[in-house]
C-alpha cells in the first residue's frame, strides 16, 4: 500500500522533532529512513504507525487518511527495535496474538489460527520452535518471530525500526538479505529506519535521508551516492575527504595548494565565486605520474592493506587525506611513508562552505592552516592505519 506524507510536523513544547516532512512511498517499495540519531527518523516511523501523534500535516496510508485512525486499524505491521516480544508467551502465542485479538466476527477459528501460525513459522524458518519462550531464542530468531507476529495480521505496510540494530554483524547481513527477498516475495510495502548507511544502500529501493527533523534528500541509493545535494548527504553516505577551497575564474583552488582544478570538470557545478568546501571520496582520488595533470601534491604517511584494497593516509593541503584503491592498480613499491605523490581527483563535489553539516574532528595536523579555520580531517568509521 502506498504512503503519502505531506507537511508532517511534530513538536514538543519549544523543540521540534519533525519539520514539514513530505514523503511518498510507492506500493511495493522498500524505503529506508536514514539519519543520525536525533534526526527524527524513529518519530516519523512511530507517527506512521500511530504510536506518536503528529502536530500538523497529513498522512495517507493507501486511500485512507490515517492520522486519526488508531494504530490497530491502520493495517500495518511493526517490528520494534528490540523486538518487543511478549516475554511471558510462547512463540506460538506471540505470533497468534494479532489473530486472537480480532473482533469476534473477524477472528479465525482455533484451527485456522494454528494453520496460519504454522505457515508463518515456516515462512520465517522457525518451525519446531513454537513452544519456546522468547528468552530461549537467539537474537536472529527473536527478530524473525517479531516479523512473523507482525505479518500474521496480513498488513499492507510493514514498518521496521532499526530491524538489524541488535544483531551480530554476520547474522545481520544474512537476515537483511533474507528480509529483502521476503518483502519482494509477498509484495509488501516496507519502510525501515536505520542509522547504518551500508544497510540502507544495500537494501532499499529508495532512501530518505533525514537530518534535524527534515528530509535532506530522497533518491535511489545510486542517485544519492552519485549526486548528493548537500555536504550532509555526501558525508553521511560514506567516508569523504574535505578540503577548504576557493572558487575563482572557473577554477577551484584548494587552500594550501597551488594547483587549480577546472570547475567545469566538477559534476554539474555552477558555483558562485568565493570560499567553498570540496569533498572527495577516498576512492575518487588517484595517484598520478608526473606526466598527468594533478590537483594536489602530498606525502605518504601510512599504508594499510585491506583485502584487495590499499588504503593510504597522506598529508596534503595541510591536512590528512585518505585515499583508497585496488592493490593491483597501485604501485606499492613507490608508496612508502615519506614518499611524495601527485594526486588527481576523479570526482569532486563542491558545496558552499556553511553547509558542511556533520561536525568532524578538527585537523590533527601540527601546522596551522595559514588563511583558514582548522580543516576537518577525513571521516572514516573504521580507519586503521599504521604510521
Amino acid at each position, binding site marked *: 500500500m502506498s504512503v503519502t506524507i505531506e507537511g508532517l510536523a511534530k513538536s514538543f513544547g519549544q523543540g521540534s522533532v519533525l519539520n514539514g516532512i513530505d514523503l511518498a512511498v510507492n506500493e511495493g517499495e522498500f524505503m529506508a529512513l536514514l539519519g543520525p*540519531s536525533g534526526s527524527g527518523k524513529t518519530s516519523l516511523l512511530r507517527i506512521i*504507525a*500511530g*504510536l506518536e501523534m503528529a502536530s500538523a500535516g497529513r498522512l495517507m496510508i493507501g486511500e485512507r487518511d490515517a492520522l486519526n485512525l*488508531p*494504530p*490497530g*486499524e*491502520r493495517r*500495518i*505491521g*511493526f517490528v*520494534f*527495535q*528490540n523486538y*518487543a*516480544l*511478549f*516475554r*511471558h508467551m510462547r512463540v506460538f502465542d506471540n505470533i497468534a*496474538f*494479532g489473530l486472537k*485479538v*480480532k473482533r469476534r466476527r473477524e477472528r479465525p477459528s482455533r484451527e485456522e489460527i494454528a494453520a496460519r501460525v504454522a505457515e508463518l513459522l515456516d515462512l520465517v524458518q522457525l518451525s519446531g520452535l513454537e513452544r519456546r519462550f*522468547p*528468552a530461549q531464542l537467539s*537474537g536472529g530468531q*527473536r527478530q524473525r518471530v517479531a516479523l512473523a*507476529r*507482525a505479518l*500474521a*495480521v496480513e498488513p499492507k505496510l510493514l514498518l521496521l525500526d*532499526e530491524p538489524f*540494530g*541488535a*544483531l*551480530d554483524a554476520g547474522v545481520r547481513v544474512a537476515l537483511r538479505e533474507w528480509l529483502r527477498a521476503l518483502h519482494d516475495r509477498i509484495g509488501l510495502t516496507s519502510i525501515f529506519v536505520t*542509522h547504518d548507511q551500508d544497510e540502507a544502500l544495500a537494501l532499499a529501493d529508495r532512501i530518505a535521508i533525514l537530518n534535524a527533523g527534515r528530509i535532506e534528500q530522497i533518491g535511489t541509493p545510486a542517485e544519492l551516492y552519485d549526486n548528493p545535494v548537500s555536504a550532509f548527504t555526501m558525508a553521511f553516505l560514506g567516508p569523504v575527504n574535505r578540503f577548504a577551497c576557493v572558487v575563482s575564474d572557473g577554477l577551484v583552488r584548494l587552500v594550501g595548494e597551488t594547483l587549480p582544478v577546472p570547475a567545469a570538470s566538477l559534476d554539474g557545478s555552477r558555483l558562485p565565486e568565493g570560499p567553498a568546501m570540496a569533498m572527495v571520496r577516498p576512492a575518487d582520488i588517484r595517484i598520478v605520474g608526473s606526466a598527468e595533470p594533478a590537483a594536489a601534491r602530498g606525502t605518504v604517511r601510512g599504508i594499510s592493506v585491506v583485502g584487495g584494497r590499499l588504503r593510504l593516509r597522506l598529508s596534503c593541503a595541510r591536512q590528512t587525506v585518505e585515499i583508497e584503491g585496488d592493490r593491483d592498480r597501485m604501485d606499492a613499491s613507490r608508496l612508502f611513508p615519506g614518499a611524495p605523490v601527485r594526486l588527481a581527483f576523479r570526482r569532486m563535489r563542491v558545496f558552499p562552505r556553511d553547509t558542511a553539516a556533520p561536525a568532524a574532528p578538527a585537523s590533527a595536523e601540527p601546522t596551522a592552516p595559514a588563511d583558514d579555520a582548522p580543516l576537518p580531517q577525513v571521516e572514516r568509521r573504521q580507519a586503521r592505519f599504521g604510521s
Partner: protein
Amino acid sequence: MASDSSSGRVRRFALIAVAFLYLAIFLVVPLIAVFSEALAKGLEAYRDALAQPDALAAVKLTLLVAAIAVPLNTAFGLAAAWAITKFEFAGKSLLTTLIDLPFSVSPVISGMVYVLLFGAQGLFGPFLAAHGLKIVFAVPGLVLATVFVTFPFVARQLIPLMQQQGTVEEEAALVLGASGWRIFRKITLPNIRWGLLYGVLLCNARAMGEFGAVSVVSGHIRGVTETMPLHIEALYNGYDVVGAFSVASLLALLALVTLVLKSLFETRYREELAPMAQPARVV
C-alpha cells in the same frame, strides 16, 4: 577475596556468626517466646484462649478489615503504578510523593486525622451524626485507617517493575489491534503478576498487623471494634498472658506464612524478572 587464607576464613566465619547471632537474639528468640508463653499452660489453655468469643470476634474483624482494605489497595496500587509508569501527565511526581506519605507519617497521626475528620467533634461529625452514620469507633473507621496505612505497598512494589518493563510490549499489542483492556489483561498483568502478588502479600501482612492507626480510631469496644493487635494489647493489659500470647501466636504464624510465601515468590519472581538476554542496542 582472600578466601583461601586462614585469616580470611576466620573473618568470614565471624561475620556470618555475628549476623546469625543478631538475628537469633532479635527475631528468633522473641518468636519462640511468643509460642512458649502461649503454650505455657498447656495446649488446652491455648485452645480455650483462642475459642473465647472476643478472640474469635477479633480474628473475624481483622479478616474483614483486610478483606476490604487489601483489594482496595490492590486496585489503587495497580491504577497508580499504571498511570505513573505508562503515561506522562502533570502532577506525576506529586502523585509519586503522595503514595509514599503513609510511610513517612506515624500511623498514630493518620488515625488522629480520621478522628478529627469523622469524630463527633470532627469536621464531618455533625453531618454523619445527622444521617446516623458512624465511622470513628466503628468498622468503617478501622477500614479507613488500615487503607491509609497500607496503600503504598502494592504501588511501591509495581512502580519499579513496570518502569523497567517499559511500554514497548503494550505498543506491540496496540499495533496488532488489541483493545486497552485486553492489553492490560493479556500483556501488562501477566508481566507483573509475581510482583503484584508480592505487593498484595506485604499489604495484607501490614493490614492485619496494623496497630497504631487502628488503635486511635477503634475506641476499644471488646468484641466489636477490636482487631487482633488491639485485642492482644487489651488481654495483656488485663494480665491474661496466655490469652494475649495465644492470639499473638496467630499473628506470628501469619508472619511466618507471609515470609515463606515471600521467599517462594522471590525465587519465582526473579526468573520472571530476568531481563531477556538481549545484546545491547547498537546506536
